[in-house]
């Protein structure tokens, strides 16, 4: 069996309490094992506090400085934990990209869209300003932003929430990453816009063959996009299965209760 694109073994993350007390420390993750194969979509579901965001932050080395991390995260066989910053920066943004929940926090409010989009191809790809700008426009078209030339010259606050999310997806994909990490990418969006963004993610995945590690609390999104699903609770993965298998034959009690609590629309047969 070929090696997985991303291999996580025994990942543990601990946030110490303020002023070095014993009580009050938070074990965000304990003993997490996870694989993501090339081109597949793994959905991570759980409620808030389950640790799902901590996994994404650990992969990219974005945990706060006081966090204690243990275990191994291998990307293409290379160990990311403890990797020197210089090498990590070559991987972050180019081979592994992230889409955040709130586009405004990822976008620089003082930079035009085109400048932000061109940053990665210029810095990492060594493209000239013109070529990077051209690439940026292509990406804006790929994410179906209407009037891309006009929008490119605007600032983030001039765009709607859905459009900002598209820009963020464009930024994530512009360097053609092999792995995309998405942290609740549609939670802040209206339901009709969410449907568009999910469709877009699906389409882009098929086109580029990138793998997607999608973190969400919404089982409906997971049902639509994920090939395999991991259920998280209190920092542990309680169940991992193929998408259909998880929904039809949930093994763990927590998975069952999550499925039962999930509100579903009663649609006519």
């Amino acid at each position, binding site marked *: 069996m070929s090696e997985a694109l991303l291999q996580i073994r025994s990942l543990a993350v601990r946030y110490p309490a*303020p*002023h070095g007390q014993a009580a009050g420390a938070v074990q965000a993750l304990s003993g997490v094992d996870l694989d993501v194969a090339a081109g597949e979509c793994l959905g991570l579901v759980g409620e808030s506090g389950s640790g799902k965001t901590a996994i994404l932050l650990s992969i990219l080395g974005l945990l706060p400085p006081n966090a204690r991390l243990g275990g191994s995260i291998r990307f293409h066989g290379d160990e990311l934990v403890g990797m020197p910053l210089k090498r990590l920066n070559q991987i972050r943004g180019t081979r592994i990209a992230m889409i955040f929940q709130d586009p405004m926090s990822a976008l620089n409010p003082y930079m035009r869209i085109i400048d932000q989009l061109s940053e990665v191809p210029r810095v990492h790809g060594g493209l000239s300003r013109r070529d990077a700008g051209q690439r940026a426009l292509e990406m804006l078209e790929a994410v179906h932003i209407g009037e891309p030339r006009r929008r490119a010259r605007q600032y983030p606050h001039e765009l709607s929430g859905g459009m900002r999310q598209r820009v963020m997806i464009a930024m994530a994909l512009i360097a053609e990453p092999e792995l995309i990490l998405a942290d609740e990418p549609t939670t802040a969006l209206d339901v009709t816009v969410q449907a568009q963004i999910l469709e877009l993610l699906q389409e882009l995945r098929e086109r580029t063959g990138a793998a997607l590690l999608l973190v969400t609390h919404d089982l409906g999104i997971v049902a639509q996009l994920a090939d395999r699903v991991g259920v998280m609770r209190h920092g542990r993965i309680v169940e991992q299965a193929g998408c259909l298998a998880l929904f039809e034959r949930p093994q763990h009690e927590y998975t069952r209760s999550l499925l039962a609590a999930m509100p579903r629309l009663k649609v006519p047969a």
Partner: protein
Amino acid sequence: MNSPWRQRLHGHLGLLIAGSVLMLIALASLIIPALSPYDYYTPQLELISRPPMLSGGHLLGTDPLGRDLLIRVLWGCRISLLIALLASLISVVVGVLWGAIAGYAGGYTDALMMRTVDVLYSVPFVPFVIVLTMLFGRQLWLMFIAIGAVSWLDIARIVRGEALSLKRREFIDAARVSGVHGARMIGRHIVPNLLGVVIIYATLTVPTVILFEAFMSFLGLGVRVPLASLGSLIADGASDMQAHPHLLLVPAAVLASIIYCFNFLGDGLRDLLDPRKHS
């Protein structure tokens, strides 16, 4: 050992020290004159302007009329602190009510009230006090009124700003839906949520007030002889600076310490109260 108290004050050592020093000065000014054999008004013409002597009676020396300087300075502290605290109290009460009502009411009321503040701001303080002194003579209570009348303006402005942003918060809407309005809204919901800001600015108002008073006394307005405030002591000391420096240095040092401590206290309170709200 990391008790909860220790944690809270961690990094707020300055606050603790400033607070303690002020307490000490206040207590000293109350207790020591009662215990001392000397008073602040009886002249002793055989002991004019003696420098500080750590052995015989007068620890800090005597003033031009032979009165014990330590006692004079402590009495000066009493007066200065009294004026400062009372005047600050007046200005805080008036300023908070004015600002809270203006901010919450909005519209014409707000405009009218704040334009009044603007007009009062432009009144020159010193001529104002001089006019008051001409009308009513040199009275101590005049100092309270004069200073209080001026220092409430800053607080009013700040409180109004806070009230404006508080007005938009969801719990104010919830209170309105419960029928709360007018005095109850301002008293139970607006003002208590401003207190953090008010305490900070009130504490920082005190040094300003003390300096105002000192300045007034220095100009010859304010306290009447034989009573002394730190300001009047400094004025007296300044005129005799060359020959008897202790007459200037002692009250000046005490005044500077008090002001320094209040500023430290205000800054410390600001650190203590504000970030907790955001954590």
